[in-house]
């Protein structure tokens, strides 16, 4: 349908420079430039390295997306950008570019939430999101259970990790096993040849008195490291495949168990899984089994749409346009801890730029783990 909103989305919250273009629920382009290789030797994302790479890649990635989509930027109905949460300096590159791009073309700007975008991207795969949608978001930066009655205006956090994100646990276990960074894909690979029941690793926060929807992966990570060290100290060979499979089983068991419990408790019959860890093959198969048993419809986008990308930002931007949400103002800040309860950052009501107002106060919510712990202007 030609009258569905045509939106370009920019994502720079971590180490991927993503630019996507969608028309309503249709994906037209998904261009990505990644700096992951530059971070590999540091064992984690280095914020300054990521920010430099974003600036290098920003305009070329926009141009690649436009030519892939075979549209003219003049025909866009809006420009969306991840306003947070994420690495402050990295976000700022995308926000600056998006503002300039929108301003130059005379298009409305939509600063949107990274987490809500991870959920909304599924509209490109499986059509309109059911309302409400239950979403399990798992990546190197986040592990959250979210209930979304309206992805453009009402997203409620049910639970999140109290220590490490799920993806971080994969990275750390991979490091103990000397498998390199990032850890998710390589552990998934080894795990396929291992026995998931070989070692009984702990399931964090699954006791009767624990918070039902929160996660904890720090204890699991330590237990795995201890187990490996004991093997090494005894001079025995570490069974990498069995360790990978048993660790992965513990993570996916907790994730799916809590997600399904949340669906049942809230009476939601759809579960959406997104974020980089959603690419994990065991998480997918376990979620399929357990959802089928519970009569829940599972929606997981293809792996490329689960990891950080610009298409997800464009998808949420298109929904903002379709539902006539207010565009952001030209003084839109990059907010490294934008709360998940704010799916977008509306302006003061008029067209962007007409009513420039003050600085939004800071928030102190869960945010992407920064390797250096340095802040924006250090």
């Amino acid at each position, binding site marked *: 349908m030609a009258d569905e909103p045509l939106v370009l989305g920019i994502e720079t919250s971590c180490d991927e420079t993503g630019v996507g273009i969608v028309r309503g629920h249709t994906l037209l382009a998904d261009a990505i430039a990644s700096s992951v290789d530059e971070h590999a030797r540091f064992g984690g994302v280095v914020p300054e*390295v990521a920010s430099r790479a974003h*600036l290098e890649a*920003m305009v070329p990635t926009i141009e690649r997306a436009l030519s892939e989509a075979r549209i003219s930027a003049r025909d866009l109905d809006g420009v969306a950008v991840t306003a947070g949460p994420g690495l402050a300096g990295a976000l700022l590159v995308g926000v600056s570019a998006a503002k300039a791009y929108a301003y130059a073309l005379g298009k409305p700007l939509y600063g949107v939430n990274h987490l809500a975008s991870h959920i909304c991207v599924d509209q490109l795969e499986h059509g309109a999101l059911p309302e409400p949608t239950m979403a399990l978001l798992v990546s190197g930066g986040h592990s959250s259970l979210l209930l979304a009655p309206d992805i453009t205006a009402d997203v409620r956090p049910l639970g999140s990790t109290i220590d490490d994100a799920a993806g971080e646990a994969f990275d750390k276990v991979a490091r103990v096993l000397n498998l390199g960074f990032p850890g998710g894909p390589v552990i998934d690979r080894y795990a396929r040849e291992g026995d998931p029941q070989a070692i009984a690793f702990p399931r964090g926060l699954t006791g009767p008195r624990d918070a039902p929807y929160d996660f904890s992966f720090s204890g699991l990570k330590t237990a795995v490291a201890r187990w490996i060290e004991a093997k090494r100290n005894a001079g025995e060979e570490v069974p990498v495949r069995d360790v990978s499979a048993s660790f992965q089983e513990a993570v996916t068991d907790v994730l799916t168990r809590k997600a399904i419990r949340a669906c049942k408790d809230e009476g939601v019959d759809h579960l959406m899984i997104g974020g980089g860890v959603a690419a994990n093959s065991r998480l997918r198969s376990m979620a399929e089994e357990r959802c089928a048993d519970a009569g829940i419809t599972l929606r997981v986008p293809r792996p490329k749409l689960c990891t950080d990308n610009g298409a997800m930002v464009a998808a949420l931007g298109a929904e903002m346009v379709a539902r006539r949400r207010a565009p952001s103002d030209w003084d839109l800040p990059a907010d490294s801890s934008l709360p998940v309860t704010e799916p977008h950052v509306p302006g003061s009501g008029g067209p962007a730029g007409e009513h420039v107002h003050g600085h939004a106060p800071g928030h102190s919510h869960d945010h992407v783990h920064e390797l250096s712990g340095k802040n924006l202007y250090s």
Partner: protein
Amino acid sequence: MLLLALDTATPAVTVALYDTDGDRVLAAADQVDARRHGELLLPSVDRVLREAGRSLDEVGRLIVGVGPGPYTGLRVGLATAEAFGAALGTPVLGLCSLDGIAYASGLESPFVVATDARRKEVYWARYADARTRLGDPAVDRPEDLPEDVVSMPAIGAGARLYEGTFTAPCAADGGERRADLPVDQSAAALACLAAQKLAKGEDFLPPRPLYLRRPDARVPTNYKVVTPK
């Protein structure tokens, strides 16, 4: 031709619209707030254009200060200028940010421009006069600068900050420190300089940041063993 100049390499967020036909600044906006470059820049551009009654697509060249400067703020200006250029097909020309401060001084004898690089360092460059930089800009602790540099008259916020190091005043004829010399970057000066360079067919820098420092990042030696000893 209209030039839109902007610079975010120093605590200043500075924007100017310049008309090369009348050789004059049509409008300018200068704010000093080292923590809000990202929020202030676009509204400033919008204000400058409105004040001059012009629109961005009338601009013939975008002029951007490429630093050196603290990275996070510096990138705001570059990302903005490059995205403007990409959206409208307008050429983006880079200038060393220190050259703008030097140009604004109007000095005719040798001097140094020094800006605050944080971490107790300054970005600095030597000039023969307001239009002529001698060598590439550098970053150093003030106490590590060569003797002949610190004994030269120095301008810019870095010279103010380390007055104990840069002791030679830019003296007026009477001998006291001149109050009219620039401290902060001004896009209006950057635009005037660009107009001169364009008229003379001189080269510009590519719109790429001058970081002068490598990112701080440590390669972890090994993971921390968790088994208690």
